[in-house]
């Protein structure tokens, strides 16, 4: 089952990424229950392999666009964990200074070009950013993540079509976790695969990948990103996965059948990956060390966040405009 094309160091790096994402989000959940994380939170627990497989296949200057369920994606592009956690907690140390919040994580230095809280809106934005890269000769690719539910909104259709016609270097990745908020995707589409069964409408190939198998994801990521970089246009990838928790906040996800949940927990991407690494002879110690380091990082980010002050009140009125201010009159 191991992908021939993925070398061991990449596989370990992806495992590390998944562990870090997992630990970060578990902690975010605890901190939400504790009231430290504010507002809302949408966890990608269980979906880490999609983020890790793609992140590992991207160049540093490639751009990530994702949704409110974007902790994994932003973290794995290199965003500093304390700054992410600070943002969830509405602290001054937050990556957006506390102004964005859980649903709006952006880390431009690492080309994490934003989490977007309105379903589907970021797809055309990802297209435009990738197109700008072509015109400017930067060789960048955009990777744009969204949910199964997003395939029914108009912006999806407009963006994928435009990208296909202009042959824009963007990889659209649908993380099909089978549910929108509380309603199964199967209830609101007349096809089986919300993304893959729409690909042909844009002249694109239908691509489905096991989103819980990080190596399979990585393979498809390499293939579609390179295709994009060669100027052959966009791809639309449907990654089958599952969220371990509810949609947001403390949602227990009771609308999902127990056996379905159990079956997917069995297919936890971290378990799959760890088993495979072990089967391939990676020492248990190496893996344990990765896990221990991750926990240290998360603990330290937590500590930093707990100690961080709230945003400076003066920042309420900054950064509406490029001059740093918010004045609309003279």
């Amino acid at each position, binding site marked *: 089952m191991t992908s021939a094309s993925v070398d061991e160091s990449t596989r370990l790096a992806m495992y590390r990424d998944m562990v870090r994402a997992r630990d970060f989000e578990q902690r975010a959940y605890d901190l939400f229950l504790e009231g430290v994380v504010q507002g809302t939170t949408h966890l990608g627990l269980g979906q880490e392999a999609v983020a890790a497989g793609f992140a590992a296949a991207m160049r540093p200057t490639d751009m990530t666009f994702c949704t409110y369920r974007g902790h994994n994606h932003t973290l794995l592009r290199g965003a500093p964990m304390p700054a992410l956690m600070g943002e969830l907690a509405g602290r001054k140390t937050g990556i957006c200074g506390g102004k964005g919040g859980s*649903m709006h994580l952006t880390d431009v230095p690492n080309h994490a070009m934003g989490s977007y809280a309105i379903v589907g809106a970021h797809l055309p934005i990802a297209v435009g950013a990738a197109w700008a890269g072509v015109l400017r000769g930067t060789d960048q690719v955009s990777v744009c993540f969204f949910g199964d539910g997003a395939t029914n909104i108009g912006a999806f259709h407009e963006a994928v079509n435009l990208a296909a016609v202009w042959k824009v270097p963007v990889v659209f990745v649908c993380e099909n976790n089978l549910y929108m908020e509380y309603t199964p995707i199967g209830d609101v589409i007349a096809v089986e695969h919300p993304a893959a069964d729409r690909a042909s409408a844009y002249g694109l190939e239908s691509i489905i990948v096991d989103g819980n198998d990080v190596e399979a994801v990585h393979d498809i990521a390499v293939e579609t990103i390179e295709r994009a970089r060669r100027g052959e246009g966009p791809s639309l990838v449907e990654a089958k996965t599952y969220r371990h928790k509810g949609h947001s906040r403390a949602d227990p996800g009771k609308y999902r059948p127990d056996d379905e949940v159990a079956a997917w927990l069995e297919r936890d991407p971290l378990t799959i990956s760890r088993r495979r690494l072990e089967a391939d002879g990676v020492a248990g110690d190496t893996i344990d060390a990765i896990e221990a380091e991750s926990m240290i990082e998360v603990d330290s980010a937590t500590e930093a966040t707990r100690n961080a002050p709230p945003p400076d009140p003066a*920042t309420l009125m900054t950064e509406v405009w490029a001059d740093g201010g918010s004045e609309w009159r003279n």
Partner: protein
Amino acid sequence: MAELTYRAAVARGIAQEMERDPNVVLIGEDVAAAGGVFKTTEGLFERFGPNRVRDTPISEEAIIGAIMGAAMNGLRPIGELMFSDFLATCWDIVANQIAKTRYMTGGQVALPLVIRTANGGGNRFGGQHAQSVENWAMAVPGLKVVAPSTPSDVIGLMAAAVRDPNPVVFFEHKKLFAAKQEVPEGEIVDRLGAATIRNPGSDVTIVALAAMVSVAEEAAVVLAASGVSAEVIDLRTLVPLDTKTLLESVSRTGRLVTVEENPRLCGWGAEITSIVVEEGFWHLDAPIVRVTTPHIPLPAAAELEDLAIPSSEQVVAAVQRME
């Protein structure tokens, strides 16, 4: 009389109307079995079944377009937009189609429909899930605009909205969902276009809406302690606008403060100010002051969001600065 939350009042108001009229239906994302993300539609699916309470895809244009079409063909549909920010995703259907169709067809098409949506800040959701956009709707001719502040108003105005033969945008304030009130059993039917004086007063008129009503009321209490008698008006509906109550109040008090959650520019506070200036100018003893959210997107962090949204302290200060 039972204590009812604003949240439960939404479901009760809808149920009352669905019970009465089989043509009333409800569609939206997760409104059926899940009972809505804010639990405002709980029990309706069980009671009225899948034909009349329906989940939709995440397709706001289709949701609102579908209720428009349904209203054209004999239903009195209610469409839910989870967050009022999402009005932007179907604004064409709302502002260009629904609002204008009766007029453009010379009166041939009636659109008795209600767009319900969760409006307003205070939940630390950040700039795309916390806006107050009732001024967007007010700026478009052909839409009625309702924004109740109490559970009992929710029921009565919901009934009025559903029974109205015109399209109504019904703003439920997220910050009020947990608010409670004793509400009598039985049918409650209110009417659109009537403001309520929540607190009579003689020195200054404070006009507010939705979550800002309690902010104004708190301010009135503080002002009373320093000898200022503030009249608090809850507008309840922006269109139709109860200018009579407003102008009458200002003619007595000579002073006006508007308190709105919208960002500053072109809000309903500006509209009311302009009306009072044009028609009640000679009654005014002082400049009208608008208390608003600053003209900024809403920040997520608690400390910043609380600073952004008008507070009773700001209202008190505004009144004290007058003159």
